[in-house]
């Protein structure tokens, strides 16, 4: 049946995207640890289902704003490995001509308004994008990714308030991975996170962030309604990050146990789960999946090699783009 076939493609693509994110992050991690990547970077590994589940429900016209932990969103919204690795290494062919780096990576062609190094810094931008859509009578939706730690930023409440007042087509997606840097979420967020959004009269949902299908289903529904002007909405996605806050930071055992990590990795991994489901539903065989993984691995390796050899932007670009023409 056509529909099932379409769904199959969708499922396979969702799987592929998650693997691409994981693969990208593994490579990025290696680049960083082998001192080939300058600056700071933050791994998304473990949260793939969140980015993929949501972004698969969006078109290129829909916008997202990302966070410092933004590689996952970037890949999920359609970015290519090569340009991403180039950007992370500060090369000219990067999405931002090397000027943004990991923390500011943006891909306008696919509607990614950019990662942001300021926690909560893009909440205003996302809301503004939604306002523009409404004012201009467009039906694109903006998804605002942020972490549980960002719920401590005053800006969120200001913009949620206005989003709610003006019925803006924005979906606030809180990736609750249980930790705000090195502190457990319950120690930095009083009361309930969901209730915060609900206090503004914003319809709020909580979902298992490691279940890509659940995330995707929910997102589709909310996006649909947002396009009709029923927004804003709030999603709290319960997830987990495998790595530290940023690569090379403190020993995680200071703030969480190895057992906990093991539990999430072995029992709740979104890729393992989805893979099992695909196989059990007959959508793909193990061999096909292995082949897919291998291909993605190869793509990544090639992209890394390419990026390593790619040139830096010329010196005269240092003072370009301060002002637009």
């Amino acid at each position, binding site marked *: 049946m056509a529909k099932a076939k379409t769904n199959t493609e969708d499922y396979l693509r969702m799987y592929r995207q998650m693997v691409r994110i994981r693969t990208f992050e593994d490579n990025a991690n290696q680049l960083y640890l082998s001192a080939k990547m300058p600056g700071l970077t933050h791994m998304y590994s473990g949260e793939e289902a969140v980015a993929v589940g949501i972004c698969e429900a969006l078109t290129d016209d829909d916008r997202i704003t990302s966070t410092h932990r933004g590689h996952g969103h970037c890949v999920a919204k359609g970015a290519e490995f090569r340009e991403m690795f180039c950007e992370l290494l500060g090369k000219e062919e990067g999405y931002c*001509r090397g000027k943004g780096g990991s923390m500011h990576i943006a891909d306008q062609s696919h509607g990614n308004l950019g990662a942001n190094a300021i926690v909560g810094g893009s909440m205003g931008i996302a809301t503004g994008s939604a*306002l523009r859509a409404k004012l201009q009578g467009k039906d694109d939706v903006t998804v605002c990714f942020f972490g549980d730690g960002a719920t401590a930023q005053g800006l969120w409440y200001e913009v949620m308030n206005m989003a709610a007042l003006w019925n803006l087509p924005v979906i606030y997606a809180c990736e609750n991975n249980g930790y705000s840097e090195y502190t457990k979420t319950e120690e930095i967020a009083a009361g309930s996170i969901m209730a915060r959004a609900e206090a503004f009269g914003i319809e709020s949902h909580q979902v298992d962030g490691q279940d890509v299908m659940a995330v995707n289903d929910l997102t589709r529904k909310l996006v649909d309604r947002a396009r009709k002007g029923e927004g804003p909405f709030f999603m709290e996605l319960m997830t987990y990050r495998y790595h530290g806050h940023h690569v090379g930071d403190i020993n995680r055992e200071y703030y969480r146990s190895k057992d906990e990590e093991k539990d999430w990795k072995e029992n709740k991994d979104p890729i393992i789960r989805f893979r099992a489901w695909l196989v059990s539903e007959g959508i793909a065989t193990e061999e096909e999946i292995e082949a897919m993984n291998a291909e993605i691995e190869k793509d990544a390796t090639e992209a890394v090699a390419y990026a390593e050899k790619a040139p830096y932007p010329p010196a005269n670009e240092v003072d370009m783009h301060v002002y637009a023409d």
Partner: protein
Amino acid sequence: MREITLSQAVNEALAEEMRRDETVFILGEDVAEAGTPFKVLSGLVEEFGTDRVLDTPISEPGFVGIAVGAAMTGARPVVDLMFGDFIYLVMDQLCNQAAKQHYMSGGKLTVPMVLRTNLGATRRSAAQHSQSLQALVAHIPGLKVALPSSAYEAKGLMKTAIRDNNPVVIFEDKLMYQDKAPVPEEEYLIPFGVANVKREGRDITLIATSSMVQVAEKAAAMLEKEGIDAEVIDPRTIVPLDEATLLDSVKKTSRAIVIDEGHQSYGVTAEIAARLNEKAFYHLDAPVLRMGAMDVPVPFSPALEDLTVPTPEAVVENARKLCAGELIHAA
């Protein structure tokens, strides 16, 4: 030529640009029916509707952030920040986000927004509603800063600001909203980075911004009676700054005083004076002086407040000393 107030001039500029380009919209506190407490925006909501003249809650960071996002995705917002003093609240959205998006994205994202706010003391509004903070934002690469000195400048600079594809901060002198000046009926724009020589002179250059342009002009009139011929220049925008005109003037007169209502220390006057020093050093027959507001929070009491800002008399005294070759400070 007809004369209109600065308030009317700003209103006209906004109305004309909103008619011209439907992506232009206004947001801020009390901008709609109230037309802002300064009544600058009266009538706009009637013409353009609440979709394009949006009242916001008292959430400066929030609505400036929203303006940034709207600008990044295809709109041209004009944000009304009720008092220049509130600029501290919006610094992250203005300076970390708006100012840097174009650069951080390698030129792919633009933020064509205008932040309309004000400056100026002597209104008895006390320390937190009387500041002139143009130096703060002029310091940030990626922002442009305009300082209209009359109704004529206000209209021309506002139109240019709205059409500029960069984040522009315009400071209006809140004391001048009811001051009239000749403003053409026909459309005109004032380009950024072009200074206006308001009065030609041979003996000393007075460079003044915004509220201080009148002060300089009054001082020039007083100096004329003493036989000192002062040249008065209004830079109009400090970012970009028309250095060439300022330098030409100083090379002609060999003396300069820079007057701005920001605080005396670490401000606009220091930057301009430094540039004159660097680039016209061998033409200087006297040190370049800075005159700004006193380095004190603006006091409430009328007896005290007026002491804190440059006056024509103070300018005259300094100009006299410079022309006489008198030492103002230790040699």
